[in-house]
């Protein structure tokens, strides 16, 4: 069964989604347990695959047993083995977490939520693994459509926000499709590795340039790089908590990975950094993204909204790192995908717990939160430390590599922007910590029989994933060397 793992990683959640839909008609309650079970199995498979990749190198899987350029191929190399592991673990944690939250927020739509949830993860896993440019488009749409639906399950302003997201997402996907079209018209092939060999033999024409440009713009729209970020904050703010917990860590990061994948597997270093020489412009965009994200985050007094702007800044980290064009920058960008995934998850889970208990995530409602929900705040703190970049959390190490890369490339604005963003994050989070730590709880009941600072923690099924994520942040930080040596460097060596 092990050699079938790449297919199973995608097929198991897909089948599970179908069963959840069917069973949901009769027994909606079973859908949660089924989802959790699915992701337990998927996580096991992804971790097995990860081990396999480390031991024997990249795994190739042909669907329908058709050889590579003719059929569709999954390629699991060192980096995406890591990313699928991240995706499945994040999905598992969010699935466990969502139990109470979904019950509270969504009512009778639970089975639909879970079936869309699993399908979304299917799409993301597929995007990460596929070695076929068009297959990637289809998977992109699978994940996009499910995410629109999941976001719109909330009420009120979520609808118009999601509608705008749908428009922007479709523009992104269409640009990507157009780019693939240009690749096809140049090479007649859809398999990434195959395209790479054909393109490298060609002279670089306008059509190749268009292919690259449109794929990149498509992905930048999807990942909300700075001038194209408008849709993101509203979407994640008004979405149901569990949805934003799932989407915020995964959607943008997977798009970043696709960008890396396209830069490495389809085009090559020489073309991107020596022929095109856009790196100055893109890194400048990344700097703007970081600064704009940080400044806009500063102006928010809603916690969830603040985090969405931080995501915009984090995207700048990754894009900038990837476009520095050196080993350290690329390592930083790749590592930050993982680190930021878990970081964002941790913070969103913590805020989800707070919203679940308090019903609000505005700064004012955080008064005395440390007394009320100490465990949640421990998770929040570790996530915040990672965002700031305090060792030994993983946020520090990604910053380390990004800064190293920026120094080597002489990209001083990026270097400074990274530091400024860390400091802004520090101020942002300590503002919250201050509010939570200093202000006494608002007097809810005049009845003094109740102790003033009553502990009122979110349910265990929400706390455990949160604390696990917090633990992972530190764990990943400590094992940075292993991750970089065994997973990220082998991947980069094939590129640079």
């Amino acid at each position, binding site marked *: 069964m092990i050699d079938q793992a790449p297919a199973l990683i995608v097929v198991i959640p897909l089948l599970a989604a179908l069963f959840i839909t069917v069973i949901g008609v009769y027994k909606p309650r079973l859908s949660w347990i089924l989802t959790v079970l699915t992701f337990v199995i998927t996580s096991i498979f992804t971790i097995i695959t990860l081990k396999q990749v480390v031991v024997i190198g990249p795994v190739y899987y042909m669907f329908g047993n058709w050889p590579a350029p003719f059929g569709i191929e999954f390629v699991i190399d060192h980096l995406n083995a890591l990313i699928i592991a991240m995706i499945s673990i994040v999905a598992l944690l969010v699935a466990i977490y969502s139990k109470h939250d979904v019950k509270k927020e969504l009512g009778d739509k639970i089975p639909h939520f879970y079936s869309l949830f699993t399908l979304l993860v299917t799409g993301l896993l597929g995007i990460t693994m596929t070695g076929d440019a068009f297959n990637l488009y289809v998977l992109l749409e699978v994940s996009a459509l499910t995410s629109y639906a999941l976001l719109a399950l909330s009420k009120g302003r979520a609808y118009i926000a999601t509608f705008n997201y749908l428009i922007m997402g479709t523009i992104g996907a269409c640009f990507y499709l157009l780019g693939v079209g240009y690749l096809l018209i140049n090479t007649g092939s859809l398999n990434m590795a195959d395209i790479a060999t054909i393109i490298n033999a060609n002279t670089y024409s306008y059509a190749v340039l268009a292919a690259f440009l449109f794929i990149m713009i498509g992905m930048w729209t999807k990942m909300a790089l700075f001038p194209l970020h408008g849709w993101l904050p509203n979407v994640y703010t008004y979405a149901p908590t569990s949805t934003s917990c799932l989407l915020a860590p995964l959607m943008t990061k997977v798009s970043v990975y696709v960008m890396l994948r396209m830069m490495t597997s389809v085009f090559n270093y020489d073309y991107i950094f020596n022929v095109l020489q856009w790196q100055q412009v893109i890194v400048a965009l990344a700097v703007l993204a970081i600064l704009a994200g940080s400044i806009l985050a500063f102006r928010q007094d809603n916690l969830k909204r603040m985090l969405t702007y931080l995501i915009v800044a984090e995207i700048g980290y990754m894009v900038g790192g990837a476009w520095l064009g050196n080993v350290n920058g690329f390592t930083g960008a790749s590592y930050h995908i993982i680190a930021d995934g878990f970081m964002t998850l941790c913070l969103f889970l913590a805020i989800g717990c707070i919203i679940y208990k308090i019903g609000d995530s505005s700064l004012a409602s955080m008064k005395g939160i440390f007394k009320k929900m100490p465990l949640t705040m421990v998770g929040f703190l570790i996530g915040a430390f990672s965002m700031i970049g305090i060792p030994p959390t993983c946020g520090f190490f990604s910053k380390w590599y990004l800064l190293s890369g920026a120094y080597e490339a002489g990209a001083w604005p990026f270097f400074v922007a990274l530091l400024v963003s860390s400091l802004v994050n520090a101020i942002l989070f300590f503002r919250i910590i201050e509010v939570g730590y200093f202000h006494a709880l608002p007097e809810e009941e005049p009845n003094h029989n109740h102790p003033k600072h009553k502990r009122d923690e979110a349910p265990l099924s929400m706390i455990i994933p949160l604390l696990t994520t917090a633990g992972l942040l530190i764990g990943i930080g400590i094992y940075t*060397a292993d991750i970089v040596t065994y997973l990220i460097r082998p991947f980069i060596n094939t590129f640079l």
Partner: protein
Amino acid sequence: MQTFTSFLPAAIVLTSFIGSVAVFFTKKNQNLREVWTFITAAINIVLLFRMAKWILAGNTYTYHIAEVLPGLPLFFNVDGFGMLFAFVAGSLWIVTSLYSIGYMRPLKEHAQTRYFACFALAISATMGVAFSGNVLTMYVFYEILSLSTYPLVTHHQDNEARGGGRKYLTFLLTTSIGFALPAMIITYLNTGTLTFSNAGIFSQTADPTLLLVLLLLFLFGFAKSGIMPFHVWLPGAMVAPTPVSALLHAVAVVKVGVFCVLRILTGVFGIDLLSSTSLSTVVCVIASITVIVSSLIALTQDNLKRRLAFSTVGQLSYIVLGAGIATMYGVMGSMTHIAMHAFGKITLFFCAGAIYVATGKKYISQMVGLGKQMPITMIAFLIGSMSVIGLPLTGGIISKWYMVLGAMDSGRIWILIVYLISSLLNAAYFFPIVYNAFFCKEEDSQYPNKIKEAPLPALIPPVLTAIGTFLLFIYPELFLNFAKVAVGVSK
């Protein structure tokens, strides 16, 4: 010269950490909670003594924690200097804990569990800094220390504490992320290593501009050392309860700052590189300015704790100045001064706290005639201030002696003058307090002529540390030998 691979350094860091966890989980039972603190502190001391013997023989202990970045592990490497600092921190921790109990319980402070837990955590991080084998490890523990002391600084949870805490974190995080981190990364990228070595890790041919920039970044990056203009957090953090101030300003925090700076100067740049270039002068000038200016500011302060804080700022720059001279004696002197000043200054803080516990007074102008009411405390205060000024019969003179020797070695007379002026200023801001306390006119005295000392737990620690200060004059070898080992004099 041998290098042992041993779990001992990690064990010391871990015991304090476990102690902190244990404290946290026994919050129901106050006495049991305090017992944990003492048990872990005692274990620490025992372990330190076990290592001390071998360290003094010129050996080092290493322990590899984890390889966090390829080729750049987190690891402990204990040498004489680290040992010296660990001893200071470990021994003063016990005294401070005792004092904390004496201070906190009568005042019925809230959240005592959090206080003791964070305290132990801070000590754990301090030990980590002391034992660090490379800049990265040091940085990690440095940051942990900043964060774990935040709840201590803001212990009162009122508006004043909030302002102080804000300043504290803003300055420490800004400088460590904004200066120290990039400096560390640039150093690593240029040299390929961050491991401390007495010869320094830069080659002699390194770009001087780069070295200068790195030096400044490091110097200001470890802002716990209180070098101006990044000293602002220090007086601000005075809002903390007195035992915390004692810990912050005498033992853990500020000393970690200067320890880091010293480590960087000796272990990263190396004395040879410093003295052979103009970098040494740069350090000396910056430190001298801080020494003089802070002493002048201290003169104007009426709040006793604030005066002590500015005194600390000045003394810290002494230490940096000693290392900046970049001669063997200078470095030895400044290493020893970490210990000497720690004992002296902690005595002073303890006294300030004891005065507050007994009388509730914070201002120097309110302390006229206090010697009549609290003679023991004030005598301890006298001894402490003598040590800080650097007068005989206290340990302070020993370290100052070596620093002056170092200054003479380097042939820079102006540094001698700086030391002289600053000592005079020190005397000028300390002696009036003592003088007024004991020898004021009868009618000026604000206190009845009746001995009413602070409760015993708050009284014993200053006495102990005062005695310690005196003993250090007689037996300075305890710390001096470590310093010698560190700079490689003996053997």
